[in-house]
């Protein structure tokens, strides 16, 4: 064994590790910078009044409660529609559909759904939900529109989570005379659930952040109160931010940052919630 050869190998190993660390830092730094910037600039605007009151003076004063509540309703409406549909389609595509040109075409279409610009979904929602189904400019129309967009994600993540369940489990279940549905219901789905939930929460986070699609199907600039029914118009955080930033002259900077901070907290808290659910599910699986 030659000492020179070893140190050369170690040198190249160290170089590689250093490069990887630098790359990781480059990736993480902008994210950190953005978060810190938002917290520092937005913290001043946050007050009890800001979180619990309706806006006044075109958003320059008062709070953003209708926008917070509207965003929550949107996330909820989106997931109520997109999760069951996505999971059911995911089950069908992985467990029942035959592998033929039709199934492949469906899979391709679903993957491509994710690449459709969000404003296209907005116009689709305007045409179908607002005008054709007469749901009007409303929370319902917006939720359905965002759900269409979220479907690409919920179907894809459900499929992947279901496919990741080992074949040995399915065979073991079928081999004791369980039906395919029982196998899915009692073995595959419980295993796939954490993955499905992760996908669902990402879809919700994205719905919370969308601006363009809801612009044309029911988001309002200013509303004095909260929506009372799914057919009411609503405010939402990203759209509120867009209007106060672009269309309200003399808008206090800190108020804008405050809206951004609230939006960030809403999205992050949902991600944390999903992580907890996932960890719990994994723990249960290991212990049970």
């Amino acid at each position, binding site marked *: 064994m030659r000492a020179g050869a070893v140190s050369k190998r170690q040198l190249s190993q160290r170089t590689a590790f250093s490069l990887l660390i630098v790359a990781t830092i480059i990736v993480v730094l902008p994210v950190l910078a953005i978060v810190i910037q938002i917290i520092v600039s937005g913290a001043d605007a946050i007050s009890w009044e800001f979180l619990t009151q309706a806006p006044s003076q075109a958003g320059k004063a008062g709070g953003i409660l209708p926008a917070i509540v509207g965003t929550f309703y949107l996330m909820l409406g989106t997931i109520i529609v997109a999760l069951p549909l996505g999971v059911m389609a995911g089950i069908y595509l992985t467990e029942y559909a*035959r*592998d033929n040109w039709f199934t492949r075409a469906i899979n391709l279409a679903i993957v491509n759904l994710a690449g459709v610009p969000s404003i296209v979904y907005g116009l689709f929602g305007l045409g179908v939900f607002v005008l054709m189904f007469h749901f009007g400019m409303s929370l319902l129309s917006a939720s359905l529109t965002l759900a269409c967009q979220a479907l690409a994600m919920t179907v894809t993540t459900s499929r992947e989570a279901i496919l990741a369940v*080992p074949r*040995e*489990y*399915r*065979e*073991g*279940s*079928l*081999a*004791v*005379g*369980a*039906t395919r549905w*029982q196998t899915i219901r*009692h*073995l595959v789905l419980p*295993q796939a659930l954490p993955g499905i939930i992760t996908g669902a929460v990402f879809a919700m986070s994205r719905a919370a952040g969308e601006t363009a699609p809801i612009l044309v199907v029911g988001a309002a600039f200013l509303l004095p109160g909260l929506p009372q029914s799914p057919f009411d118009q609503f405010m939402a955080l990203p759209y509120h931010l867009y209007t106060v930033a672009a269309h309200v002259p003399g808008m206090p900077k800190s108020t804008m940052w405050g809206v951004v901070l609230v939006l960030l907290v809403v999205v992050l808290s949902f991600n944390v919630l999903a992580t907890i659910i996932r960890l719990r599910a994994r723990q249960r*699986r*290991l*212990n*049970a």
Partner: protein
Amino acid sequence: MKINSVLSNGKMVSQSKTKLKTEAVNLYYGSFQALRSISLEIPERAITAIIGPSGCGKSSFLRLFNHMNDLITGARVEGRVELDDINIYDKSIDVVELRKRVGMVFQKPNPFPMSVFENVAFGPKRHGISNRAELEEIVERSLRQAVLWDEVKDKLEQSGLALSGGQQQRLCISRVLAVEPEVILMDEPCSALDPVATLKIEDLMRSLAENYTIVIVTHNMQQAARVSDMAAFLMMEEDRAGVLVEYGPTSELFTNPKDKRTEDYITGRFG
């Protein structure tokens, strides 16, 4: 194929009832033929071993008896496969009901990611038993039959995945026993286990053979010689389709093989 010898259960093979039977069975995966014209009769309450080199279609053959090949796209069966004289490839056959009668143990122990209790109770629950006391009784009985009860009776609520490899395989056997099958198919059940665990499974198989018809695929010739009553030797031909070379009582097949290829294989000249 003429068979005439004493099974370990004391009966003459010729007197023993035929449990499973194949008649000129061909199995295809798409255009590839995996098995060609296999005909044999498997006696009831005995252990029949399927031996042969890798890739000769042993597992595919075993999976005929519980329709497990159906899971593979493009799989197609010709000929007859009978269970108690009924063709199980008839359109009217309920595959789910068939699999309840013909259980299967796999190569790699595959306990479900749930408790020991739930693993064993999985089958009975799916067949509609929900009474806790009844389930407890089934679980205990099945674990005792698989000689696992004493080792796990204090950890029924622990994960089945936490058991050792040999215990996991016996858990999988319990899971199959819990639905009270008539036939147990075993696909190289010991290939992932150490020698001690292997011997335990073999002892278990011998005791189960008193009540069940067992068909085992094995790579291990010593194992086939140790545990089986009947042995079938499969080999692949030039086009890689598996054919039955020889079938008969294990003692004869191993001591006095009629086919040169069988002799070459069991004496270790290839495979």
